[in-house]
């Protein structure tokens, strides 16, 4: 248990510290890298809870795909840091207010869950209910009780994807595109033409 406690405090500290550095780092690329660190140590916390399936999904989806695209975009942006800092003092009070309200809410929820929620009944949430591994357990719930929500979430994502494609897809006239089928089907007959040129006349189109 002592080993687990050490691992927990280490991971929790790294997560919180990385989260703080995300907002305080001067360079946006460093911010994204700290965000990735935070994701990664959060996945470590999932593993400590026994939810290894969620941990791996967190890494595959967020760290492996989403954060790469973040990094991709942030690296290509040319950001003027001075301009970003201009309104700092002006927006500080309202930002602090929102952060304060959120902090108080989080503390209240955490305290109430810990004292009279489900978590107090059994100290650790069961990661493998009914003897299944947690992958199977999630599958059994996701495709039975919550199948509607699951499919609806999938449809929402699909609509978003189609929307993005429709907004950006443009077929400009005059742009030459590669059609591999056409290329492969090309024969000498269709590809060239033999012309008899008489001297002094050239080729007329």
């Amino acid at each position, binding site marked *: 248990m002592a*080993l687990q406690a050490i691992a927990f405090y280490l991971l929790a500290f790294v997560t919180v510290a990385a989260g703080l550095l995300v907002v305080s780092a001067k*360079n946006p*690329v*460093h911010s994204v*890298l700290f965000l*990735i660190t935070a994701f990664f140590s959060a996945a470590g916390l999932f593993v400590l809870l026994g939810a*290894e*399936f969620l941990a*791996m*999904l967190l*890494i*595959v989806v967020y*760290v*492996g*795909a989403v954060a*790469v*695209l973040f*990094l*991709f975009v942030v*690296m*290509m942006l040319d950001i003027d840091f001075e301009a970003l800092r201009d309104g700092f003092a002006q927006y500080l009070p309202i930002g602090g207010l929102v952060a304060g309200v959120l902090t108080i809410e989080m503390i209240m929820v955490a305290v109430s869950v810990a004292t009279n929620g489900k978590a107090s009944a059994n100290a650790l949430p069961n990661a493998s209910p009914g003897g299944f*591994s947690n*992958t199977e357990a999630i599958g059994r719930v996701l495709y039975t009780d919550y199948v509607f929500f699951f499919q609806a979430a999938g449809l929402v994502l699909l609509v978003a994807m189609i929307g993005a494609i429709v907004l950006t897809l443009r077929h400009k006239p005059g742009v030459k595109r*590669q059609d591999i089928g056409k290329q492969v089907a090309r024969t000498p007959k269709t590809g060239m033409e033999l012309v008899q040129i008489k001297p002094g006349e050239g080729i007329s189109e």
Partner: protein
Amino acid sequence: MTEINPLLWFGLTLGGILLVVIWVLLSLAFLLLADRKIWAGVQMRKGPNVVGPFGLLQSFADFGKFVLKEIIIPAGADKVIFLLAPLISLVLGFIGWAVVPFAPGWVVSNLNVGILYLLAMSSLGVYGIIMGGWASNSKYPFLGALRSAAQMVSYEVSIGLIIITVILLAGSMNLSTIVEHQAGWIWNWNVFGGGLKNIVLLPVMVIAMGMFYISALAETNRPPFDLPEAESELVAGYQVEYSSTPYLLFMVAEYSNIVLMCAMISVLFFGGWNPGFPIDFTAGWPPFLVNFLLALVFYAKIVFWFFMFAMAKAIVPRYRYDQLMRLGWKVFLPMSLVLVALVAGWRVFSPVAG
């Protein structure tokens, strides 16, 4: 697991990790040489043949040269990230070996979601490249890094979907269970559909295996998909500004990833440590000997697949970037989706249940 002394467990795991790392490093030294020799052989050259007999010690000579040279950090580079990038690459290149089962029980960490872990670690590999490319503060490395990010994210999608077909066949994400599922005769291997009753799936799984092989080439930035380091366009891509030890770390990580992909193909489709015939006759043999022989079988499969990787490098011309994206998104993604649907359909509706 609960009864074992934590200190003993720590020592045993540490020993296992050291053993695997040393094994991988030693193998890499000779596989790297094999790669160059095969490449040379295809082009009718001799390849490295000066250091040691047949050039066997060439990799060690290269190692000494890399380590003894000066580390040059370009002015204007982000120093910390510049040096962190090859380290991250190296760690990610080796961390995946933790879940690879070499023989029954011979695995550092028998994770329940081992296959997802491997997918996660190979998807993280892109960070080393993209960080190195950005931190170099130079145009060619940056272009190489951007290309590589797009390429690796694209091909992960099809790798993930193809892995799902194997998970559906084996009914588990544990790599040891997947290998045990393919025990016995050769037709129990997943590439043949995983058992005689599933022989209908043979064409599906052969296509899946081929697509996995090609996607693995793209995922590890091997030719014909080595666009991040295309020397005719980008000099050396993200590696332009790297020299000496950091470059060595990048190269070792790259080859470790390649060999890991070879191991993955062997485990997922070609039965891992199973030799392709029942091994009941070894019942009376000492278990260590049996395990050692099975590990050799697995090793032979890895070397075979590395040979295939090397041949692809020697024979196939490089893809153009738009063709690479087209292949990933317009060919492999729909095809692997169809494969998943076919395998899932067979598993649910097949007349021979199970």
